[in-house]
């Protein structure tokens, strides 16, 4: 085995894995406050990426990314307010179907707005061929951007949930919605906020990853499935574990190319998902006792 090739695969796996983790964290935020799996989570990533690419034509990149994130957050809020907020204790089946519907509509609108073309932001620094050599391994600077920004996002989120009152309110809502309401916390606003947050995180992921993976109107679904796999792998609702699970999945997927044709890369990660669901639905880091208390 060639050490350099090995490292390249490892880095590629790491990059994708971190992106999957970010999508998974988006899933977890909404799941924690509402108990809903938002099947349209991948669409936030797509909208973020696409909007940023379009805005980049009119403004400098940092501004374009910031604007794209804010626009996606607004879209997230709108989706929650229009489709979710006013439903009184909807069944899980109903919520699944509604979010699937939202994902389809979003994709179709994106198709009409942006057509089928594949787009990408330019590399944040350097070009596609620039590379930094670290210990003999050539790494694209974009990878460093991805890793850096994602780490920052995770840290900021962690701080937000642990130390701010708003974050605590959200955690209270996810722990026990009625008890939170009895403390005077508006559960409905927390739900909207969770959509806004996860839309923003998804959009940011879409922006920073687009130079490497490109975005297209339908790139959301694939990412959503991977993100969900990671979320389940780490134990639904557990964002810290999602990071570890994401890296595991990314690396596995990356090395699977050695034994399988690239076309089956997706099939690999989905098989992992199915396997995990069958064998250990609480996730590899999840605890069985806690899962048995959850209603599915």
């Amino acid at each position, binding site marked *: 085995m060639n050490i350099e090739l090995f490292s390249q695969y490892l880095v590629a796996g790491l990059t994708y894995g971190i992106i999957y983790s970010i999508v998974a964290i988006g899933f977890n935020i909404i799941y924690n406050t509402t108990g809903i799996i938002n099947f349209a989570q991948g669409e936030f990533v797509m909208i973020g990426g696409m909007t940023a690419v379009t805005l980049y034509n009119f403004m400098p990149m940092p501004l374009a990314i910031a604007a794209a994130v804010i626009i996606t957050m607004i879209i997230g809020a709108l989706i929650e307010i229009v489709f979710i907020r006013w439903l009184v204790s909807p069944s*899980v089946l109903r919520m699944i179907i509604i979010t699937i519907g939202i994902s*389809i*509509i979003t994709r179709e609108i994106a198709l009409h707005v942006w057509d089928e073309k594949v787009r990408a932001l330019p590399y944040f620094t350097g070009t596609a061929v620039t590379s930094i050599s670290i210990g003999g391994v050539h790494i694209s600077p974009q990878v460093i951007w991805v890793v850096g920004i994602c780490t920052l996002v995770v840290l900021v989120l962690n701080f937000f949930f642990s130390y701010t009152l708003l974050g605590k309110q959200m955690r209270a809502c996810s722990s026990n919605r009625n008890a939170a309401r009895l403390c005077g916390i508006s559960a409905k606003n927390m739900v909207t906020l969770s959509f806004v947050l996860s839309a923003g995180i998804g959009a940011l992921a879409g922006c920073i990853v687009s130079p490497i993976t490109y975005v297209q109107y339908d790139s959301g679904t694939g990412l959503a499935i991977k993100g969900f796999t990671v979320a389940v792998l780490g134990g639904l609702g557990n964002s810290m574990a999602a990071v570890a699970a994401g890296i595991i999945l990314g690396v596995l997927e990356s090395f699977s190319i050695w034994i399988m044709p690239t076309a089956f890369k997706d*099939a690999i990660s989905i098989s992992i998902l199915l396997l995990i*669901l069958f064998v250990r639905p609480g996730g590899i880091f999840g605890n069985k006792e806690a899962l048995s208390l959850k209603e599915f």
Partner: protein
Amino acid sequence: MKKTRHLQILILIVTVISIQLLTQATDTSYYLTQLTMSAYYSLVIIGLSLVMGYAGQISIGHAGFFAIGGYMSALLTTHNLLPYKDSTFVLILSKAGLLVSRQDLYGTDLLTVHPWVSCILAIVITIVIAYVIGGPVLKLKGHYLAMATLGFGIIIFRIVLGSSIFGEADGLSDVPAFALLPGIEVSGKMPVRVLNYYIAWTMVVTGMVLLSNLVNSRIGRALRSIHGSEDAANAMGVNISKYKLHTFVLSAVFAAVAGVMLTHYNGGIGPSEASVMKSVRYVAIVAIGGMANLWGALIMGVLLNFLSLRGYFGSMDDAIFGGILIIIMLFAPNGLLRLEILGRLKKAKPKTGTEQA
């Protein structure tokens, strides 16, 4: 109860015949092509209605079963076995009369599996896969079940899209006609259009008879009880996991049969038949029809597929299905064609509907 069931089937048969006569009279028999295709899609939908509405389980992977049926049949009836004609296996098959010789479009000689054999094989394979997948999948609930079935669908999609044996993005074509009986063949050729319309609808009528019998039987009652409360059903001696699994397999067979027939009718199959969007579309139609409502599913299945196939939705095809899904789930989660709603209208006595899973 039994009488209404017979009446419903009778009305269906009369409608099928009158539509054919009507198209003949108005010289619009080109509609029959889409009506035939819609009929096959409806088979998938009524099967799925059994799973979703009666057993209360969601499946966002039913296009996978349709594709397994269609692709297996297409593969076996188009894969040329001539190069292996001297191998013992092929010799045995050929001795047993399971193979047929024919020529393809370019006049090359082909030795392929007989459509009947391929059809049966396709269904057997579907049953095996449905059992293997259904066993663990149906232990899951809610989001996990939805994601697992979705994952299954995507795996099938990726496999047919990524394997050269299944023609990758082009799919498989040049699938021969399927002679059910001498003189009765499933094919999209013009001269047999009317015949095929009746073949397809005979299958739908048969499917409806079987399923409406089933839902009105002891099993149907048990399925509804599972939907109502798994615990209570279990306590009454209903083996819930077995019933869920059997229902799942049965609906997979309906999907596979539809896949086989439609592939022979169209002369080919492409990966889009296995796509997630197709599965979602089936779910949408079942939801619109009102979940536990076979007739609603059938009517909506034929109507929406027909409109879609005729191109009425244009480039908005998928968007329209997505939109319908949301609107139905937001405002009428029990479907548009619920008999209770009609009954309620008759009584003109407004009641608040209660949420049902």
